[in-house]
C-alpha cells in the first residue's frame, strides 16, 4: 500500500477546518491566515497529484486506495482519480484560496456586535469553507458509490450554514428582511438537494440489491460493477436500470442544476456572500455534472442512451432559458446565477452528446466555467461591497472612477460570453461541435446561446460601468492589492487556458475515451474522407484547379 495521497488531499482541509474552528474568538486574523495556509497547502498537494498522474497509463483510475469499511454491506473506502477528477480537484483546490482571500472581511463581526467570547463567526466561516473543500475533494475521488453518496450529501450541511449564516451586507436598510430572505434561500437549497439526495439514496440501495442479487455479494464499487457488466456477469433489467439511472440523475440534476430544478440557485447565490456564491456555482455544483459523467454514464450506459433525448432537450432549454432570464435580471448576482444555469446547460449538453468533443468540452467547461465565474462573481462582489447594493440600477459610470475594476469585470464578462482567446471559448465550442456532430438541430439552437450571452453580459457592463457617473458611485475606490491578488491570477489563467489548453486536454482525453468506451459510443465519422492532413500547406494549386473548372 503506497502513500495515501488522495486521502491526505482531503484530510488536510478537514483537519484545517477543525483547527480553524477551534481558535478562540480573539484570534480572528490568525484564523484567516491559518485557513489560507491550509488551502494553499491543499492546492500544493493537488498539484502533486496532477503532476504524478500519468495520462497514458492503462488503468482507468490511479492512486487507488481501498479499505474495507462496512463489510456487511460491501462498502469499501475506495478512492481513485481519472483525468477528469484530477482536473476538477485541481480547480477546487485552486479556487478555495481565492475564495478565502476574497471573503477576508465578509465574516468579521459587526462593529456594534458586543464582544462575546463564544461568538466566533469568522472562525466558523473559514472552517465551513474548508469543510466544504474537503468533502468536495473526497467526492471527486470516491470510486465507491456509497462513499460518494455520503459526502455528496454531507456537503449540504456546511453549505447550508454558509448560505444561511453569512449574507453580504448589501441588504443595507432592512437587516431583518435580508436575514429572512437568506434563511429562506438556505432552506430552499437544503430541501431541494435533500430531496434529490433521498431519491438517490433509494437508487443506491437498489443498486446494492441488484448487485447482491446477481454477483452473490453486493458491492458499491464503481470499478467492480463496470467490469462485471463488461464481463457479462451483471445484467440489470432494462426497467430497473432506467429507474436507478433516474434516481441518480435526479440528484445530480438538482445539484447541477438542470432546467426545471434550478430555482434554488438564484436565491442561494443572490443572498449569500459572493465568495460563497462562487463556492456554490464553481465548486459544489460541479460535483453534480462530474457525477453524471462518472456514475450515471458508467453505471447505466443503456439507460443513459435511453434518456439522452429528453436530457438534451432539458439542457437546451436551460441554456436558452437561463440566458433569457439573465437578461431580465435587475440584481447583479442573480444575473450571474442565471448565466451559470445557462452554462450548466451547456455542460450537460456536452456530457450527453456522447462524443469525445462533447464530453471533453464539457469537462473543460467545468474547469473554465469555474474560473471565469469566480473572476466575474468576485469582482462583482468587490463592487457590491463598495456600493452596498446589488441592484444594477444603482450603478453607472464605474468605469470612469475605477478603471481597473471595470477592466477586470469586463474580462470576466467576456470570458462568460466565451470570447475566443479566453478559456471558456474552447470548451463551449467543443461542446457545440460535439453536440452538432450528433444532433445538428440541437447544436444550432444551442448556438443561439452565444448571442444571448453577449446580450446579458454587455447589458450588465453597459448599465453598471459606462454612462455618466452616478453621484453615489463617484467615491468608489479602485481595486485594492488584496483584491488584485485575487483577480489577476484568475484572469491570467483564463488567458493561458484559452490559448494553450493542451495540458488540460491531455489530462482529460483518456478519461473521456474510457467513459465513451464504457458507454460504448463512437464519434460519428465525417461524411467526406479528407486525404490531406490539417494545416498542410501548398493547397493553392488544389484550389486553383477547383476554381478554374468551376468557373468554366
Amino acid at each position, binding site marked *: 500500500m503506497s502513500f495515501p495521497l488522495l486521502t491526505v488531499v482531503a484530510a488536510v482541509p478537514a483537519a484545517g477546518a477543525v483547527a480553524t474552528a477551534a481558535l478562540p474568538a480573539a484570534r480572528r486574523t490568525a484564523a484567516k491566515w491559518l485557513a489560507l495556509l491550509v488551502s494553499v497547502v491543499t492546492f500544493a498537494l493537488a498539484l502533486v497529484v496532477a503532476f504524478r498522474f500519468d495520462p497514458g497509463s492503462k488503468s482507468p483510475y490511479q492512486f487507488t486506495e481501498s479499505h474495507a469499511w462496512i463489510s456487511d454491506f460491501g462498502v469499501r473506502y475506495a478512492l481513485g482519480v481519472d483525468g477528469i477528477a484530477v482536473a476538477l480537484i485541481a480547480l477546487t483546490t485552486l479556487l478555495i484560496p481565492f475564495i478565502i482571500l476574497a471573503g477576508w472581511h465578509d465574516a468579521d463581526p459587526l462593529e456594534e456586535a458586543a464582544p462575546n467570547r463564544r461568538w466566533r463567526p469568522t472562525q466558523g466561516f473559514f472552517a465551513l469553507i474548508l469543510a466544504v473543500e474537503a468533502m468536495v475533494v473526497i467526492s471527486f475521488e470516491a470510486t465507491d458509490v456509497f462513499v460518494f453518496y455520503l459526502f455528496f450529501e454531507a456537503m449540504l450541511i456546511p453549505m447550508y450554514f454558509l448560505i444561511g449564516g453569512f449574507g453580504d451586507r448589501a441588504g443595507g436598510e432592512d437587516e431583518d428582511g435580508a436575514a429572512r430572505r437568506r434563511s429562506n434561500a438556505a432552506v430552499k437549497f437544503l430541501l431541494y438537494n435533500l430531496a434529490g439526495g433521498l431519491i438517490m439514496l433509494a437508487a443506491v440501495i437498489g443498486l446494492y440489491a441488484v448487485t447482491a442479487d446477481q454477483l452473490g455479494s453486493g458491492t458499491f464499487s464503481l470499478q467492480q460493477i463496470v467490469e462485471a457488466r463488461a464481463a457479462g456477469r451483471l445484467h440489470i433489467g432494462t426497467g430497473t436500470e432506467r429507474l436507478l439511472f433516474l434516481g441518480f440523475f435526479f440528484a445530480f440534476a438538482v445539484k447541477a442544476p438542470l432546467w426545471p430544478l434550478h430555482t434554488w440557485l438564484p436565491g442561494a447565490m443572490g443572498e449569500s456572500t459572493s465568495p460563497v456564491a462562487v463556492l456554490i456555482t464553481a465548486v459544489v455544483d460541479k460535483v453534480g455534472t462530474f457525477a453524471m459523467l462518472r456514475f450515471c454514464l458508467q453505471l447505466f450506459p443503456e439507460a443513459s442512451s435511453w434518456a439522452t433525448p429528453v436530457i438534451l432537450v432539458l439542457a437546451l432549454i436551460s441554456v436558452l432559458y437561463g440566458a433569457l432570464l439573465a437578461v431580465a435580471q435587475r440584481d447583479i448576482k442573480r444575473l450571474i446565477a442565471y448565466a451559470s444555469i445557462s452554462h450548466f446547460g451547456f455542460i450537460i449538453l456536452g456530457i450527453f452528446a456522447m462524443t*469525445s468533443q462533447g464530453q471533453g468540452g464539457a469537462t473543460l467547461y467545468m474547469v473554465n466555467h469555474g474560473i471565469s465565474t469566480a473572476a466575474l462573481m468576485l469582482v462583482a462582489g468587490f463592487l457590491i461591497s463598495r456600493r452596498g447594493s446589488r441592484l444594477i440600477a444603482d450603478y453607472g459610470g464605474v468605469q*470612469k472612477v475605477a478603471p481597473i475594476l471595470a477592466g477586470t469585470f469586463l474580462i470576466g464578462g467576456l470570458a462568460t460570453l466565451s470570447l475566443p482567446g479566453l478559456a471558456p471559448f474552447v470548451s463551449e465550442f467543443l461542446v457545440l461541435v460535439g453536440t452538432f456532430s450528433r444532433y445538428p438541430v440541437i447544436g444550432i439552437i444551442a448556438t443561439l446561446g452565444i448571442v444571448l450571452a453577449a446580450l446579458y453580459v*454587455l447589458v450588465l457592463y453597459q448599465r453598471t460601468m459606462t454612462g455618466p457617473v452616478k453621484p453615489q458611485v463617484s467615491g468608489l475606490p479602485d481595486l485594492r492589492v488584496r483584491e488584485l491578488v485575487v483577480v489577476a491570477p484568475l484572469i491570467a489563467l483564463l488567458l493561458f487556458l484559452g490559448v*494553450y489548453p493542451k495540458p488540460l*486536454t491531455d489530462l482529460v482525453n483518456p478519461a473521456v475515451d474510457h467513459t465513451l468506451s464504457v458507454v460504448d459510443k463512437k464519434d460519428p465519422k465525417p461524411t467526406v474522407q479528407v486525404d490531406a*492532413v*490539417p494545416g498542410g500547406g501548398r493547397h*493553392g494549386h488544389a484550389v486553383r484547379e*477547383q476554381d*478554374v473548372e468551376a468557373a468554366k
Partner: protein
Amino acid sequence: MENLIALLVAAPLVGAALLLCGGKRLDRTGHLIGTLFSVASFALGVVLFADMLGKGAGDRALHQQLFTWIPVGGFRADIAFQLDQLSMTFVLLITGVGSLIHIYSIGYMEHDERRRRFFGYLNLFLAAMLLLVLADNYLLLYAGWEGVGLASYLLIGFWQHKPSAATAAKKAFLVNRVGDMGLSIAIMLMFTTFGTFAFGPVFAATDRAGQGTLTALGLLLLLGACGKSAQVPLQSWLGDAMEGPTPVSALIHAATMVTAGVYLITRSGAIFNAAPTAQLAVVVVGAVTLLFGAIVGCAKDDIKKALAGSTMSQIGYMILAAGLGPIGYAFAIMHLVTHGFFKAGLFLGAGSVMHGMNDEVDMRRYGGLRKYMPVTFITFGLGYLAIIGFPGLSGFFSKDKIIEAAFARGGTEGWILGGAALLGAAITAFYMTRVMLMTFFGEKRWDPAEVHPHESPKVMTLPMIVLAFGSVFAGGLFSINEAFVKWLEPVTSFAHGHSPVSATTVTAATMVVLVIGVGIAWGMYGRKPVPALAPRGSLLTRAARRDLLQDDFNHVVFVRGGQELTGTLVQLDRSVVDGAVNGTAAAMGGLSGLLRQLQTGFVRSYAVQMLGGAAVLVAATLLMRGV
C-alpha cells in the same frame, strides 16, 4: 522567412499588452509605443512582401505551424499561419493604413486623457485583424473575427461616458454576434462533413461534398460576412458605430474590419464556386446593400453617417463582385484596397474638419470651408473624385471592373446586377457630391463667433496626404497589364468574364451616370443655398434618414419582442416553475394538517384505528398465506 509571420501578429499584440497593462507610467509615451509597434508590423509585412515577390507565382504561399491549439479526439485546431498573396494584400493594407491612422490619432486624440488606452485598443485591433487574415484554419480565423469584434466594441464605446456611444458599441457587438453564429455553425458543419476545418483540406475536398452541404456552408459563411461587413440585413450597426472616434471609423469601419466579410467569401471561394445557390444569395445581398447604403448616404446630414452609408454601399460592390466567382474575386479585392485608401482618406478628412469645427458633425453647419482648411479640402477632394470613379483615379479602375463583371455574369441576372451597379454609381456620385458641396462650398452656415475653423496639425494632415496619393494612383498601378489580378490569381484564380456589352460601353455608361449624379447634386446643393435646418423632405428621404426604418423594425421585432419574452419568462419562472416547488411544499403542509385531524385525543377513536390496523394485519397475513 515563415517564422516572421507570427511576429506580424505578435508585434501589435505585445504593444496592446504593454499599453493596457502598463498603467499610468506609460501615459506620456503610450501613443508613441503603439505607433511604433504598428509601424514595426508594417515593416515586417514589407519585408515579407519583398521576399514573396522574389519567388515564383506558384510557391509564394508561406506556412507557419506554431502549436496545436485544441486537440480533442478527432478535433484538431492548430495555431498555424498561412501567408499567401491574398493575406499579403491584407497585411499590407491593414498595417499600412493602420500605421497611418496611428500617426493621425497622435494628433487627433491629443487632448484625451485616455489616449494610452486608445492606442492599446488600436494595437489590439491590428493584432486581431492580422490573425484573421493570416489564420490557416477557420477556427483561428474565427478567433480573429471575434477579436476584431471586441476591438471595435471597445473603440466604438471608447467615449463610454456618452450613453449613445455605449449603446452603439453594444449594438455593434450583438449584431456581429449574430453573424458570428453563422460562421461558427459553418465551422461545425465543416468539421462534421470533412473532419477538419483547415483551409487546405477543406478546399481540396469540396468536390466530394454534397451540394446541399456546400450550399448550407455558403449561406452560413455569407451570414457571417453580412454581420461583419454590415450587409443587409445585418447592416444596422454601422451607422451607429460612427459614435466612435473618427480614426476608428476610418480604420475599422471603413478600411479594414468591415471588409473582413469580403475576405471570408474570397477565401472560401472554393466552397462558393461549388455552390451556385449560395453565390446567387451573395450577389443579391451585395446588390441590395450597395443600393441600400447609397440611398441612406444621400439623406444623412451627419457627415460621418453619410460616409458610413457610402462605406456600406462600396462593400456591397465588393460582395457583389466576390459573389460573381472567379471573374470577380480579384476585382473585389482590388476595390477593397483602393476603397481602403480613399475611404480612409475621406474619413480622416472628415475627422480633420470636425477637429477644426469643435467636433461639429452636421454638414448643414459647415459650408465654404475650402479656404480655411486647404490641405483637408484637397485630400478630401481627391478621395471624393476617387470614390465617384473619376477617370484615372483608383475608384475608376476598380469599380468599373466590378460593373463590367456584373454584366458579365450573363443572362437576366447579369443585366439586373449590372443595372444595379450602374445605378449605385450614379447615387454614389450624387451623395458624395452632396457631401463635398455642403462641406467645402457654398456660404458659411456656421457662427464665426464660436467656431474658428483651422487646418489640422501636420501629424494629422500627413497621413491624409499619403492616403490621397494612394487613392489617386493605386488603381492605376494595379491595372497596369492586370498586375493585381495576376498577383492574386494563384490564390483566388481568375477567369475572364464574357460581358454582353463591351468594356468601353460600360465605361461610357459609367461616365454618363456619373455626370448625371453630379449634376443633380450640383443642382440641388450647388446652385441654391443649403438650408441650415433640414427640410422635412420626401417620404423616401425621411425613411432614409431613419436608415430605411431598419432600426425601427429591429426595435419593434427584436427589442420589444425580447423584452416581452423575458418579462413573461421571469413571471413564468416565479409563478410556474418555482410555484410548482413551493406548491409541493404547501401540499405537504396541508396533508400533514389533514393527518393531524385523526389525532382527536379520544381514546375510542384511537381504539378504532388500532382495530383497523389489526384488521389490516390479519388481512395481510391471510394474503401472505395466499388465501
